[in-house]
């Protein structure tokens, strides 16, 4: 990859014909990627940019910080806060449990078939989000759900008597975990595969036990990947609409649902505040993704 063809065509050559040929060639090169950039501009960048601008405008198109200020109203702030809690809880749970599952399957000394099975299943479950997932959890942990009923009939335990509800913070988090855990398994597996058996053996031969290995070597090596994955999971949950909407309707006040309702014209009747809400979401997911990318590049750099 040291000399790319277009750097060759740009090499100054004597003769105008050569130069013209070089120019048309490089123009052609750009033409090859033009459809992609046009598409990205029309359907990804401009729509987002126009919202971001709209967030700083009032209804007449004048500049204002009023929309941003309104984000700090109690009701909206609390929506962000609940969103943050649900995303953080499901990201944290997904990270820890997903890591444990991946470690068990890869390094736990289990039979060979466990790993590919877990991977395939994770591929399915991480994509089984949205409305069908909420149906599944309603059938499981809803008032008439199988687990709820079994617990009541056989364990004499009234789940809903404890204040639990599938429509609550805890219920939503449990539901989100269904795609968060497999997602974690999928993204952390390459990092675990990167742990080399010799590191453990080197540690042993230097007098370190299992705990020392995990504490001083494996976890520090995995750490950037784990943190990065957690951030990705967080962003993943923060932007999710369908699962929450189908599960709770508008009863749980989280940002994506607030925004959904706002767009449908149900609640706020304030376009520009909607833009600000969207901007807030981009900022949150953008920051956590940036963190993910930064940590991932750190994790890669550390490899021998």
């Amino acid at each position: 990859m040291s000399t790319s063809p277009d750097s060759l065509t740009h090499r100054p050559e004597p003769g105008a014909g050569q130069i013209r040929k070089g120019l048309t060639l490089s123009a052609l090169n750009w033409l090859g990627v033009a459809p992609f950039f046009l598409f990205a501009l029309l359907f990804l960048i401009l729509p987002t940019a126009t919202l971001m601008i709209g967030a700083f405008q009032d209804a007449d198109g004048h500049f204002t910080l009023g929309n941003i200020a309104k984000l700090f109203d109690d009701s909206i702030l609390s929506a962000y806060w609940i969103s943050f809690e649900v995303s953080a809880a499901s990201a944290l749970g997904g990270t820890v449990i997903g890591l444990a599952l991946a470690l068990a399957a890869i390094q736990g000394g289990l039979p060979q078939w466990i790993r590919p099975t877990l991977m395939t299943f994770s591929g399915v479950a991480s994509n089984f989000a949205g409305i069908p997932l909420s149906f599944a959890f309603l059938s499981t942990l809803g008032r008439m759900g199988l687990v709820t009923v079994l617990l009541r009939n056989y364990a004499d335990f009234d789940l809903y008597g404890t204040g639990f509800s599938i429509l609550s913070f805890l219920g939503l988090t449990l539901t989100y975990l269904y795609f968060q855990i497999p997602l974690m398994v999928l993204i952390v597996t390459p990092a675990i595969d990167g742990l080399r058996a010799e590191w453990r053996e080197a540690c042993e031969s230097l007098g370190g036990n299992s705990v020392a290995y995990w504490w001083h070597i494996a976890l520090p090596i995995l750490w950037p990947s784990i943190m990065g994955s957690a951030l990705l999971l967080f962003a993943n949950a923060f932007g999710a609409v369908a699962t929450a909407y189908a599960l709770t309707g508008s009863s749980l006040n989280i940002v994506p649902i607030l925004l959904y309702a706002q767009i449908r014209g149900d609640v706020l009747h304030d376009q520009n505040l909607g833009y600000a809400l969207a901007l807030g979401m981009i900022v949150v997911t953008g920051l956590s993704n940036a963190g993910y990318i930064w940590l991932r590049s750190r994790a890669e750099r550390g490899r021998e």
Partner: protein
Amino acid sequence: MKSTSRLGAWVAIAIGTLYFVLPLIATFEFSLKMNRDGYSFEAYKVVLADPGFQATFGYSTLMAVLTIIVGILLVVPTAYWIQLKLPRLRPLVEFITLLPLVIPAIVIVFGYLKLYNSSSWLPLTGNERATDLLLMCSYVTLALPYLYRSVDAGLRAIDVRTLTEAAESLGASWPSILLQVIFPNVKSAILSGAFLTFAVVIGEFTMASLLGRPAFGPYLQLIGANRAYEPSALAIIAFMVTWASMGLIQVFARNARPARKTA
């Protein structure tokens, strides 16, 4: 020491399995209870016979197929061209293809509604066909991260430049290079991306709902809000569709391995 950690591993896997299988069992069990007098597939019959189901599922399938075709036509030449001629642009293109993971779907579609509403410079939401087009484009953006990554990886696994130069030196034209040399070699990568796209698009709710199109996702939501047993049957059907998509990816990934070695 070793045996306790193995026990721990078994426990982790067992709990994980329980957590993931229980909701499926519960959903399935619930879906069989439509008839008062015992288990039956009544809910499935009702669902499958519902014209709403047929129409929306058909619509979403069509959307998914169109998304895949447009996505491939957009992504494959771009990824190929970037590797061959413009490697400098790779970071930028990669960044753009990852944007849909950063910008939530609801934000993207909100942007469409602002940019392309009926009083704008390009009133795509004005008529139904144009809105369908917009919805398909929104799905292409959703699929972009998956499609681009798997195609790019597939292209990296073969040596694109050498293959192209070999074909050129044998006198092949550009279309035939793409169609007969590059495409067959990344077919399995493309298919993986395609099935993943299918799984993501088929039950998509947010965009279809906000653009007001009669897709499977909004239909699911509607049934969920109004019926008792049908939603469970639908969830099982959706799960099987997802499973089939992923299963097909596995099949193609497995078939691809020996092919890649000889390439």
